[in-house]
């Protein structure tokens, strides 16, 4: 059953070809055998998974209709799970057991999905390589000397190595799409507000968004049907009807207008990656789409604006880690100030501290206008670029990342790491939906194609991605790692 999608396994569960318990045991067994090579999971919850699988089998026997019922799932360790440790990749929360479930977790539980465990991630989702995790880096299943991308690196590696059927992720600047590209799978970031952020540990509240990490656009649509919707517990979740995201997947692409941003095919783009994307665009032409060159003139400012907005919001959000109510506390504090400072300095890693310092500086007295306000003004220019583009085109297509996965330890300079997200960050600043799907290879490593649509055009984006996957087989390629000794 290796490498099967939600759609395929959901059918097998209904024909009785397999059971959820059998499927769950298969995945737990794979995790036991290979997780130590990849470090994709921080926590595996075997007992609970088997109990959920048994319950799912009963529901399936009773005619349960949800396609995720009985399907093994992994949650990024940023989602609070009642009774299961939620670390956010940090020493600060290494022993934190949440008293409640995130809305996303609650929805998957209600639909009968089986939680296998919690996946590794960059600490507090701050990173593009999964190397900032307190629990050690994740390895890319296509080449274990390379990073899986980040911050949802554990979820992406787990899906790519078939250590789960589907996984959740979060994306603040590219944290679903870039690891999906590096690991050769499908990663989808919906519009801001489409999925509840309740119980999803906050990094940058005006940018954070949850989304599916899985094996196909069709699976992403199935997961979206579970995840999307208004939540009274998240005041920024959007009160907008949720369509059936699987309904229009097969719509033909005749007449589709695809925008190709000149700025995403400029200096700095690896030649193999460019070729793969250009080949993908030709595929779209065969499917009836027309290609139109467009400009996103302020795109080059997105990384700068992001590194004000995200750290500023992070510095406010992470002020809650004070050693008083939950999380890590230093030993023998002499007074309150000493407790705060040592708790935070020992509990947070270097990258998190760096961003807190940058954000604190940007928000400190006298600097607000020059930094935060200025960044929000740039943010408007970036959003306007997209709005202008969407007057001419339906979707925008380009590379997800300037190159394929890089080697562990290759980017020790924070600024070089920040520039990894040059094509994805603007989408978060503008709040738009974006997806990365496999589109080829560069020296044996997967290349991701990035597609963006207008606000709440998720269904259209999934339709476009699905039709591409119907016509190509890049998403069906698996790393050799998966076919290794005893791994079938």
């Amino acid at each position, binding site marked *: 059953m290796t490498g099967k999608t939600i759609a395929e396994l959901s059918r097998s569960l209904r024909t009785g070809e397999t059971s959820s318990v059998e499927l769950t045991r298969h995945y737990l067994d794979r995790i036991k055998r290979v997780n130590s090579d990849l470090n994709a999971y921080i926590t595996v919850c075997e007992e609970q998974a088997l109990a959920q699988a048994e319950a799912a089998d009963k529901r399936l026997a009773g005619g349960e209709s949800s396609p995720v019922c009985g399907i093994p799932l992994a949650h990024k360790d940023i989602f609070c799970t009642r009774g299961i440790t939620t670390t956010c990749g940090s020493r600060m929360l290494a022993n934190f057991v949440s008293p409640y479930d995130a809305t996303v977790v609650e929805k998957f539980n209600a639909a009968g999905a089986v939680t296998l465990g919690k996946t590794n991630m960059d600490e507090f989702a701050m990173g593009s390589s999964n190397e900032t995790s307190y629990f050690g880096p994740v390895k890319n299943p296509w080449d274990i000397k390379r990073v899986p991308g980040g911050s949802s690196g554990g979820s992406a590696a787990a899906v790519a190595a078939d250590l789960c059927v589907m996984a959740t992720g979060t994306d603040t600047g590219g944290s679903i799409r870039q690891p999906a590209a590096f690991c050769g799978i499908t990663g989808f970031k919906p519009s801001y507000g489409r999925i509840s952020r309740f119980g999803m540990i906050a990094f940058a509240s005006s940018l954070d968004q949850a989304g599916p990490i899985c094996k196909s656009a069709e699976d992403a649509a199935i997961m979206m049907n579970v995840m999307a919707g208004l939540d009274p517990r998240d005041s920024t979740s959007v009160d907008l009807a949720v369509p059936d995201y699987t309904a229009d997947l097969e719509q033909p692409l005749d007449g589709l207008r695809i925008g190709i941003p000149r700025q995403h095919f400029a200096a700095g783009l690896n030649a193999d990656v460019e070729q793969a994307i250009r080949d993908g665009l030709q595929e779209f032409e065969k499917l009836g789409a027309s290609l139109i060159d467009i400009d996103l003139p302020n795109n080059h400012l997105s990384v700068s604006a992001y590194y004000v907005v995200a750290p500023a919001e992070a510095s406010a959000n992470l002020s809650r880690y004070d050693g008083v109510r939950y999380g890590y506390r230093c030993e023998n504090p002499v*007074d309150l100030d000493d407790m705060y400072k040592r708790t935070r300095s020992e509990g947070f890693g270097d990258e998190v501290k760096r961003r807190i310092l940058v954000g604190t500086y940007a928000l400190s007295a006298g600097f607000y206008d020059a930094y935060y306000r200025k960044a929000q003004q740039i943010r408007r220019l970036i959003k306007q670029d997209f709005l202008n583009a969407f007057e001419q085109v339906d979707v925008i297509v380009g590379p997800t990342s300037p190159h394929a996965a890089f080697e562990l330890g290759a980017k020790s300079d924070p600024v070089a790491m920040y520039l990894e997200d040059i094509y994805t960050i603007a989408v978060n600043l503008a709040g738009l939906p974006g997806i990365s799907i496999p589109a080829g290879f560069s020296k044996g490593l997967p290349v991701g194609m990035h597609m963006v649509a207008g606000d709440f055009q998720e269904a259209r984006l999934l339709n476009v991605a699905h039709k591409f996957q119907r016509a190509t087989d890049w998403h069906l390629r698996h790393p050799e790692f998966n076919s290794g000794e005893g791994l079938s």
Partner: protein
Amino acid sequence: MALERSEVEKIAQLARLHVDDGEAEEVAQRISDILDLIDKMQAIDTESIEPLSHPLDAVQRLRPDSVTETDRRDELQRSAPTCEAGLFLVPKVIE
């Protein structure tokens, strides 16, 4: 933009972070590099541009001011480093 060591110490105090003497120079350098990246946006004239604080320009949704949560103090305090009689314990603040 280069940050002085004293400025790093000031923001570290605001953020309640401790920066070791041995690493202060490196931290100042790293943050200065990030500020250089950020400062690229200063080249753009944004005088007449309205800031975008929410990607959809939406405003906060309000709900009726009524009690929706039940008392779960014991459960919520289970994650606390130290508690006693339903109270969070912290180092002495008043002599």
